[in-house]
């Protein structure tokens, strides 16, 4: 099936075209088209994965344009990393699409929604399959577009915290700042070696043909792109806002796939990072700091969707840290995979809650576990996976990261990882207890809550199963995942005492977080925040998100961008144009004074004319050689 790998990318695009061209007015047909095409993609992805496990890899390439002997190509790179991503992306896309039939039921933009979802699947799969920098950048931008369109999907709604189109715009522009860095990184590489093909560049980098400093700078610049897309500090601010989009979108784009594209990018270009090792430090520390920053904010958010959004940022930070400390792709990609499943699960589960209770504010919710058994149970599975309780998938991948941090000698980052693990299990169970346990708040009693329809619960169940089992491919005893992804290296040969101890410690830490959450929120309805009473300063600091957004949207945007722009516009009008008009005025003045000569009397003109001719004649006669004879 490997030669047909391009179908994986092409199918969703076909779906997109069919939906906007043919079935736009028939919502259910649109959904069917989208799901069928994604299913085909998934099938091809699975067969490709099987083939790749069997040892096949391939690089399909198509010459797109050749300009001054510089080749631009489009291609499909089939290797273990992309094969895994194909399966992850198409699986989650398929489940989210099925889920959306129920979630988006009756929405006037139903077909539009599915066309955008298909376009996104196309872009994301194209990004994954890229075999060169141009292609990955193109699809990188396209997933950004889909994100923009889908965040602002309900373009005429007021939104929860800000209007969806505004959120979409912020998301696009903030990520684009990162993209500029990415673009410059690509340009830097292309100026050193005249190609954009991954394998050629990596081969050159590994062979040491390229300058180390250049590679380090290029790697950091590429990482800038990942910082934007994967919502790492300092460009993380867009992701919580992106929660204004429909929840299936949050699950698919802003939890499982697109935000992980940054991690995938770093993993994909690891050869460049490895050749400029200082860049890995940047990756590790930015990742670690982001993990901590986001987790700390997640502790105090009262909108549960935002809690999970910050959790996503935090987990992405984890992945970056994994890539940074290990200098290898395995741990980060493993966490990406497990996280994709359990985070999609969490989002879809809270989507189910939002769908039923029409609120995402924890103060308004509580005691939903009785009415929504499936949702409650699947959310619990997701929470356990996120918290890192064995044998759920999150445990294995998270443990590998912490282990890698300690193993690399960056003990600080290792401890940071453990602290974040504690915070993680605390905040996610805070959400769980506050939403599904306890009593419903008094003002919500009249509103009866139903379990969601099967189109929504079935994907939840499937994802819950996956969230449990996916981690088993990468246990320290038998790390098939690592062996598959980087076959050359030595993996899971023996489990040392340190590994076992670390597993125990991290499990205990996670359990402690759960217990603390239960102690505070488990027994009563969530309405007061103990931290707010005990340490109002810290609480304000956290709930204002470290004042980072205040700085961005309160200082940089109004003064640095809009204010400066208005100043420029004024400058253009008043100074530049004024200068021009001033010159015009001077010329006009000269014209007015010259106008006196225009008496309008023909004979006056004739006189002047003749006089000039005569003067010329006299001059020629007397003062030039003309009169001296021929």
């Amino acid at each position, binding site marked *: 099936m490997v030669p047909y790998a391009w179908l994986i990318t092409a199918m969703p695009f076909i779906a997109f075209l069919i939906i906007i061209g043919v079935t736009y007015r028939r919502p259910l047909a649109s959904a069917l088209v989208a799901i069928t095409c994604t299913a085909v993609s998934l099938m091809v992805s699975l067969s490709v994965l099987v083939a790749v496990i069997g040892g096949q890899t391939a690089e399909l390439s198509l010459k797109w344009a050749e300009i001054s002997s510089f080749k631009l190509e489009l291609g499909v790179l089939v290797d273990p990393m992309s094969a895994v991503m194909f399966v992850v992306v198409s699986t989650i896309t398929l489940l989210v699409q099925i889920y959306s039939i129920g979630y988006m039921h009756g929405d006037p933009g139903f077909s539009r929604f599915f066309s955008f979802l298909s376009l996104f699947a196309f872009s994301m799969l194209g990004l994954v399959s890229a075999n060169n920098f141009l292609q990955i950048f193109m699809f990188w931008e396209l997933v950004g577009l889909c994100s923009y369109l889908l965040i602002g999907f309900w373009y005429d709604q007021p939104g929860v915290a800000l209007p969806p189109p505004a959120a979409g715009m912020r998301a696009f522009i903030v990520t684009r700042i990162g993209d500029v860095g990415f673009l410059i990184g690509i340009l830097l590489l292309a100026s050193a070696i005249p190609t954009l093909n991954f394998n050629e560049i990596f081969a050159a980098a590994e062979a040491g043909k390229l300058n180390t400093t250049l590679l380090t700078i290029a790697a950091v610049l590429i990482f800038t792109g990942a910082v934007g897309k994967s919502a790492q500090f300092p460009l993380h601010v867009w992701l919580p806002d992106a929660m204004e989009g429909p929840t299936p979108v949050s699950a698919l784009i802003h939890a499982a796939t697109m935000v992980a594209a940054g991690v995938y990018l770093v993993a994909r270009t690891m050869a460049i990072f490895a050749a400029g090792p200082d860049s890995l430090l940047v990756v590790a520390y930015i990742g670690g700091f982001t993990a901590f920053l986001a987790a700390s904010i997640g502790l105090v958010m009262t909108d549960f969707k935002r809690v999970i959004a910050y959790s996503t940022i935090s987990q992405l930070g984890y992945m970056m840290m994994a890539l940074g400390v290990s200098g290898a792709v395995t741990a980060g990609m493993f966490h990406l995979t497990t996280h994709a499943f359990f985070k999609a699960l969490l989002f879809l589960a809270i989507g189910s809650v939002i769908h039923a209770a029409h609120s995402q504010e924890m103060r308004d919710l509580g005691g939903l576990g009785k009415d929504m058994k499936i949702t409650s149970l699947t959310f619990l599975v997701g929470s356990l996976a996120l918290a890192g309780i064995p044998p759920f998938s999150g445990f294995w991948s998270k443990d590998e990261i912490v282990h890698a941090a300690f193993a690399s000698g960056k003990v600080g980052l290792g401890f940071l990882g453990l602290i974040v693990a504690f915070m993680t299990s605390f905040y996610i169970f805070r959400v769980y207890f506050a939403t599904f346990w306890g009593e419903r708040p008094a003002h919500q009693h009249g509103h009866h809550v139903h379990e969601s329809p099967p189109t929504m619960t079935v994907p939840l169940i499937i994802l819950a199963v996956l969230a449990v089992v996916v981690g088993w491919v990468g246990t320290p005893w038998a790390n098939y995942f690592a062996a598959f992804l980087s076959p050359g290296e030595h993996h899971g040969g023996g489990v040392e005492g340190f590994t076992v101890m670390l597993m125990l410690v991290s499990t205990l830490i996670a359990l402690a977080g759960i217990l603390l959450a239960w102690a505070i929120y488990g027994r009563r309805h969530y309405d007061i925040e103990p931290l707010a009473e005990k340490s109002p300063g810290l609480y304000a600091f956290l709930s204002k998100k470290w004042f980072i957004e205040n700085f961005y949207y309160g200082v940089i945007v109004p003064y640095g961008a809009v204010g400066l722009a208005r100043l420029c516009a004024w400058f253009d009008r008043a100074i530049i144009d004024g200068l021009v008009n001033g010159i015009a005025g001077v010329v006009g003045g000269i014209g007015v004074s010259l106008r006196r000569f225009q008496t*309008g009397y023909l004979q006056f003109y004739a006189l002047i004319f*003749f006089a000039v001719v005569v003067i010329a004649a006299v001059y020629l006669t007397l003062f030039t050689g003309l009169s001296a004879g021929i």
Partner: protein
Amino acid sequence: MNNFLVLGALIFAIGAYGVLTRRNVVFIFMGLEIMFSGVGITLAAFAQHIQPASALGQIFILFILTVAAAETALGLAIFLRLAKTHGTVQADKINELKG
């Protein structure tokens, strides 16, 4: 030949003087005619002196004469029109070219 040339220049100058000083448009035209004649004489003198065998000079004058005649006819027609619309034939009363 020099005499002819000087004569041509003299006639031209007289015509120009007329054009410049007269107020009546008809007089201006007469001045113009005189100027044309001066040019014609000069041209004929040169033609005879430099290239007597070729007909070029004479043909040139012929064309000038023709065009001048046409010009006079048109000019006088304009004059009549002017007299009708402006009620004056004095050039210094007509200043529509004033900017």
